[in-house]
């Protein structure tokens, strides 16, 4: 064990509720699932001794050895492909792709193998794997370290797609993904890795994939987002709240499947919806949410469904901050819906 590995070793878990950040929640989920199930193996680029470039797998190789936590050649196609082959043979692989922007070489493995194995073989073979990958902007990473490619994956039946924004959800969803029987693309909003702090219980729990969460209840407008933009939704709701507007904030948490029922119920109650994500607007997953809202709650709508998205440019480097939706742009979209 190297000195770094020793330093990275996890403290013994305590049974009490603790406040941790999102990346620690990820590490804990991995640690606990590996402890629970020998079939869980972890691999990717620099996830072993290095603990991952964001340190999500810090200490895990020290705890579980190189057999279960290992570095691979620098090849997303073979990382994802190997995960498929391992899952088919009965393991529970959790592969890390260092940045969601680099999933391209593994894309065919995801859409042609992982997503379709159960379907195309009539259930004779399945590929229950998890691909964890940091995504989203706000870290001055330019387009190859900042993009939000989740919509590509929501467009492929057979994949489950999730993106938590709190430590509680990150831990619970990752555990659910590992325990599940389907391939899951697990996006981690990298700018929240350390910025998002919250309580997690000391006991074992999971968060069901496909269920949204109401972050705060409100009656005038439903503000709906997921992933890295969630703290900005809260800020916008605070600002509007100070002006006497009651905003219901919803975190989708899962994109496929997504909690249409909860969203539609909310919009039927408030009459207004603003959808927020940082991915480019064209073919943004929120387009599906907007369609579903107008189809199911047209008569309840008091204003057109609003959307705040990233711009349809490649993700810029210098304009990182103004590219992202941000609380002001979100608030303005809400005001527009309220004044319609």
């Amino acid at each position, binding site marked *: 064990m190297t000195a770094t590995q020793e330093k990275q070793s996890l403290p013994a878990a305590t049974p009490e509720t603790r406040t941790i950040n999102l990346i620690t929640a990820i590490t804990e989920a991995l640690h606990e699932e590996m402890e629970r199930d020998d079939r869980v193996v972890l691999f990717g680029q620099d996830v072993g001794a290095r603990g991952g470039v964001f340190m999500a797998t810090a200490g895990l190789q020290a705890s579980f050895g190189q057999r279960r936590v290992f570095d691979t050649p620098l*090849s997303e196609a073979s990382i994802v492909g190997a995960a498929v082959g391992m899952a088919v043979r009965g393991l529970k692989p959790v592969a890390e792709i260092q940045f969601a922007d680099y999933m391209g070489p593994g894309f065919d493995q995801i859409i042609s193998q992982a997503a379709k194995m159960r*379907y195309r073989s009539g259930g004779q073979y399945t590929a229950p794997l998890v691909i964890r990958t940091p995504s989203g902007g706000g870290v001055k990473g330019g387009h190859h370290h900042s993009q939000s490619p989740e919509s590509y994956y929501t467009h492929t039946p057979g994949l489950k797609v999730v993106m938590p924004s709190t430590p509680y959800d990150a831990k619970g969803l990752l555990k659910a993904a590992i325990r599940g029987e389907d391939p899951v693309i697990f996006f981690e909003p990298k700018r929240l890795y350390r910025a998002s702090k919250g309580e997690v219980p000391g006991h074992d729990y999971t968060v069901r994939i496909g269920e949204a969460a109401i972050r705060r209840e409100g009656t005038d407008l439903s503000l709906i987002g997921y992933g890295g933009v969630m703290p900005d939704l809260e800020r916008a709701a605070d600002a509007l709240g100070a002006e006497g507007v009651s905003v219901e904030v919803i975190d989708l948490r899962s994109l496929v499947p997504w909690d249409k029922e909860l969203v539609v119920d909310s919009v039927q109650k408030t009459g207004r919806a603003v959808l927020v994500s940082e991915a480019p607007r064209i073919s943004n997953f929120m387009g599906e949410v907007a369609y579903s809202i107008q189809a199911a709650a047209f008569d309840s709508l008091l204003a057109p469904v609003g959307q705040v998205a990233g711009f349809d440019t490649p993700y810029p480097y210098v304009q990182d901050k103004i590219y992202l939706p941000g609380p002001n742009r979100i608030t303005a979209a809400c005001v527009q819906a309220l004044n319609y």
Partner: protein
Amino acid sequence: MTPFQINPAPPVEFLSVPEIQPFTAEPIRYVGEDGLPVHPLPDAYTPERLRELHSVMLRAREFDRKLITLLRQGRTTFYAQSSGMEATQVGLAHSVRPGHDWVWPYYRDHTLALALGVPMFELISQCLGSNSDPSRGRQMPHHFAARKQNFVSISSSIANQVPPATGTAMAQKYLGTDEITVCTFGDGATSEGDWHAGMNMAGAMAAPCLFVCENNQWAISTNLRGQTASENIHIKARAYGMPGFYVDGNDLVAVMEVCTHAAGWVRAGNGPALVECLTYRVGSHSNADADAEKHYRTREEVQEWLGRDPIVRVEKLLEHLGHPIESEERSNMISAVHREVDQQVIRAEATGQPDWRIMFEDVYSDMPAHLREEAAMLRAEQAEQTGGDRK
């Protein structure tokens, strides 16, 4: 070179010294085109055993012919024949322990499937998309999957099976089994990124995977010379730290010997190996490519390879050993296969075709709300069209 120029493959010399070693300049051969052994045959190749193997090859060949007929009758929609490649696929099957080792095949492997014991009924059911298809009619014809034989579902996407095969081998190693994984592909696949990624990973991880290139020299209309400037395929193994064997893919005995040797190397924990079986696609790529000789290759080239027919070679060998297959016996064997195919087609067709409900199943382990909604919509549409929901 213009895109339309016919560029024949260079003449191939065969290595007549059957010493099994990697990276030979010529393909390893045990039996010449005249059916005479170029080296004393190992004891295992008794006339009885050779006859048995011959019948497996002939069964696969006639399966091809019958399925092409079904295709022309419009009873199936796609077919990728492996005529001329029987020695490669039957020989390879010999090194696999069916249901114990795992196979990630490619889309031209029905002979391998038959040789591994996948019931013909299942293959025909898949080609017809009938209710008896174990894959539930989900894939275009000739994309098989067989659970009992660990014959993993085939993807059309070329070389797509290579990184997963590496993963399965890694899992086998992780689990401490004595299984190996066998991964097959054509020559065209070796140009794909996935092929190199998977081979490299297998080498780096010392995964127990036997990679087998069924080099039939044509990827639809692009021949081997158009595919790579490399002198051959097996030499690429060197770059990934594994042995690369080169074998006459139309010589059943040579394929069996080399694949068994290579599988033994893999099984012994030495890491992966690559075998290149030099064979030839005597038929077209598929029904989408009905007249290859009209467009991109010469009839002379095909004739030359028809002269190297792997089944005829076994027959000549048997003749040489004093156990010839008489022509009447041969035609009886062929008729028996035709009857078998006819019977299995009738059986499969009798099971009917999967109805609309099947479409929504197996997308996930559970059925999410959006799929339930879509299924309900289709149910209503179907009910309207049939004048009442059947259930």
